[in-house]
């Protein structure tokens, strides 16, 4: 696929849980080379949107496409192009890292030889050698998250959807994870959800702000900053905030009508 062509597309995605509209008409496209940050308060609908792109949840209406394939109508083709890290980086606790990743590689259609080769690369790039034969239940949060990333990268997908990849990591691990995402960025379309604002500035080429299921802003981190209300520098600040935080608060609090 050509550079810039949409690898992820959502069209008027809506998801209702009973009377609650968790996602309310979200449309966007993501092209190769883009790292899009999903930004929003907890419960904004970020994870639900990601689950619909991955095809784990069926939209109430609207559709999601991965590499041109409808996540619902053509799920197998869509999933073949998608690496997905679900919220909390779930993995089978009773398996060793090696067994788990070999299982995923097999399920992704890699032959045992291909799988071994690919896993050898991932051990290097994701730094899993120390825990390779350890059971997943015995891993620290940071390693567990890395196993989750490795699992998503096994088949070298065009599209990565990562739900809070840096949640629970210490500052060094966060830094490494961001560096990894940046190195992957040029060849893939990546969506990362976070509620950490500095992350957006650190790795994203674009940010989409979601609150209460609606898209409130879509632009580069610099565009987002333009939303920041002018700060009167002479006024003392009780809580120190960055301009990006100001912009985020301005967008999510004002436009959601709180």
């Amino acid at each position, binding site marked *: 696929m050509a550079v810039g062509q949409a690898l992820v597309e959502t069209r008027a995605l809506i998801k209702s849980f009973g009377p609650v509209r968790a996602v309310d008409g979200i449309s966007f496209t993501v092209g190769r080379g883009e790292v899009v940050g999903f930004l929003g308060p907890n419960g904004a609908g970020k994870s639900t949107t990601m*689950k619909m792109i991955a*095809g784990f949840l069926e939209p109430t209406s609207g559709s999601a496409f991965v590499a041109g394939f409808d996540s619902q109508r053509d799920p197998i083709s869509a999933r073949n192009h998608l690496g997905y890290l679900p919220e909390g980086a779930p993995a089978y606790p009773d398996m060793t890292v090696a067994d788990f990743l070999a299982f995923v590689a097999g399920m992704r259609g890699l032959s045992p030889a291909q799988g071994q080769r690919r896993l050898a690369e991932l051990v290097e790039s994701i730094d899993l050698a120390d825990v390779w034969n350890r059971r997943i239940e015995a891993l620290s949060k940071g390693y567990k998250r890395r196993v989750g990333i490795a699992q998503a990268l096994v088949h070298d997908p065009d599209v990565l959807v990562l739900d809070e990849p840096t949640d629970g990591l210490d500052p060094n691990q966060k830094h490494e994870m961001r560096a990894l995402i940046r190195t992957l960025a040029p060849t893939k379309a990546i969506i990362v959800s976070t509620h950490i604002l500095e992350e957006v500035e650190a790795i994203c080429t674009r940010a989409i702000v979601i609150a209460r299921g609606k898209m409130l802003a879509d632009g580069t981190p610099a565009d987002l900053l333009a939303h920041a209300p002018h700060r009167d520098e002479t006024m003392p600040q009780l809580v120190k905030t960055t301009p990006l935080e100001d912009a985020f608060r301005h967008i999510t609090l004002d436009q959601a009508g709180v």
Partner: protein
Amino acid sequence: MRALVLIFRREFAAYFATPLAAVFLAVFVGVSTGMTFFVSNFFDRSQADLSSFFTWQPWLLLVLMPAVGMRLWAEERRLGTIELLMTLPVQPWKIVLSKWLAAFAFAGLALAFTMPLWITVNWLGSPDNGVILASYLGAWLMAGAFLAIASCISALTKNQVLAFIGAVIAGFIFVMAGFDLVLAAVRPWAPDVVVQVIASMSFIGHFQRITDGVFEASALVFFISLIGFALWLNVQILDARKAA
């Protein structure tokens, strides 16, 4: 096909990843031989057959199979791994089938561990080994039916205890379907055909015909179609939860 094998292997190994398998096998073998010797008085009957062993199987499997099957989906949901599994490029029915097959193989292993009884009875006399083989197959299929029901109910919840209780209750209804306890509840309002149909669903009825030496095709067909239906329902439940 490869996906089926991979999931089967993972699931089967999962039973042995914890002491669960050892405990389960010990309980199963212990209780079934205990019942045979102490409750059914295997020796006093002075008959070289295993009917005192197989009589207890419906009841034993009713309780123990839900214990094997309760984790199948409830655990995936609790761990969140269901999200991983269901977003792999594999049709859901393959996942449902291979998970069930792994549990079914585990049940087969448990039954195989009671083989010393079979050897003993051959040493003491000359039993009808054809009937015993058929009874073993019947017990295994019945275990498969309990497991398919358990798998189905497990897909409804992330709580394994709830899945266990639900599966025991559903299994109990099937075990008792031929008895008045169930039929009396239906007879007053349902037409005769319905009562007949329910009576014909009895696990004990089908299993008894097999252990009596009448290896009827109908019993085979019954258990296999019930397994097929429960697994189909399992797929539908997963699908419905996706849209929920």
